[in-house]
């Protein structure tokens, strides 16, 4: 769980990772578009639709919800009922709440994995690719798709993030090695809307 979350945050802030020796020009270009999009915002909110396809099943699980982010390091994600969940990450403290189950789970991530740490890197242009993963960039019309293939044998085989020329994320696809697949579509994305503390409450 913790690793999965970190991977997602790395995806959103991929420029923060250590450098890779031989950069791919298209990948760098795409990541820089994404980075600039993040660098220029103070907060954002978006509706999301999450489709989970388990490899062993024909039926998809579809959830809808909302995500919010505010600098320097607060991230919120709510999946609506049924089977709703609330996730809040404040810097390196992660809290997950299951309202229908009356359960709250809290964990503290290592300081080097804090959101603020990752955000601090966004002020710098991307000139190298992250280590420990293969990164490819593909531009199609007004959209970029960056493919991130982590090395090793972890659960995630590939991440694909699609965004427009202003760095607004449209879709996030997570391919797992077990052939499970998750697609998160972002709609109604609004940036710099002045999100308040009350927008990041779990209760």
């Amino acid at each position, binding site marked *: 769980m913790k690793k999965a979350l970190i991977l997602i945050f790395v995806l959103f802030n991929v420029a923060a990772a250590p450098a890779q020796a031989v950069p791919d020009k298209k990948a760098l270009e795409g990541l820089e578009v994404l980075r600039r999009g993040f660098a220029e915002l103070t907060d954002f909110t978006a509706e999301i639709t999450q489709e989970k396809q388990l490899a062993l099943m024909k039926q998809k699980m579809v959830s809808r919800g909302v995500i919010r982010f505010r600098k320097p390091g607060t991230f919120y994600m709510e999946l609506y009922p049924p089977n709703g969940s609330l996730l809040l990450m404040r810097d390196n403290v992660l809290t997950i709440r299951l309202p229908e189950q009356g359960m709250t789970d809290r964990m503290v991530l290592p300081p080097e994995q804090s959101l603020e740490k990752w955000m601090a890197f966004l002020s710098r242009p991307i000139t190298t690719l992250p280590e420990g993963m293969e990164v490819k960039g593909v531009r199609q019309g007004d959209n970029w798709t960056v493919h991130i293939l982590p090395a090793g044998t972890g659960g995630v085989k590939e991440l694909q993030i699609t965004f427009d020329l202003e760095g607004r994320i449209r879709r996030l696809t997570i391919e797992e*090695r077990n052939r499970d697949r998750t697609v998160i579509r972002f709609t109604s994305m609004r940036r710099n809307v002045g999100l308040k503390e009350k927008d990041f409450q779990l209760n």
Partner: protein
Amino acid sequence: MHRCIPLVVLLVSLCLAGCAAAPKPLVGLVPGKEAETLQSPISIAIRTPEGGRGGRGYLIFKRPDRFHLAILSPFGLTMLEVFSDGDRLTCLIPSKNTAYSGRIADLPAREGLRTWGLMRWVVEKPPVAGPALKRDHVTADGRRETVFYDDQGVVLRKETDEGDRVVFSDYQVYDGVAFPSVMEISAVTGESVRITFDEPELNRPVEEGALKPNLDGVTVLPFSAFQGF
């Protein structure tokens, strides 16, 4: 999470054991009809004396005792898959590309072990309801239990003399079968599990492949090698 595995299996078993029960008037019940298969999105909450964990996921069940449970992270990643086939269990952790597999009896002797005993108790069909709303019964493993029914003859809860307890609530009728939307198990060890089903599909065909783990390229270890999630 390790402690969750037995409880999860227990929950699946409860699905069937509870399928014949309903706490409120139900319409459309077909006498004698039972759940042979179950497929449902779920949310699950597991509480132990050390804390709690939960999530949402999906459950596939096929009589008599086979199931596939997937628990997902909020981002949709598969955190844990559990497959049961008779007395064998496989617990697959995709993020580690590792599975632990073996007989239920070979699970490490940790706090959750008590719940395996509960599982065996739960898979047993309760005695047929009579005119009484409460019946004492001796289980296959010799333990004494009390089964509580409602006035439709369906099971509301079961309790053992040792203090284990399962409660079925919020029944709905699916395909002529009463099925609880919520199940809660409380083990005498202090662990409890609550599972909520969201629009379950009963008695729909379940493909064999959905009940078998795909272990290609996965490191499969015995339960004795389990060091935690």
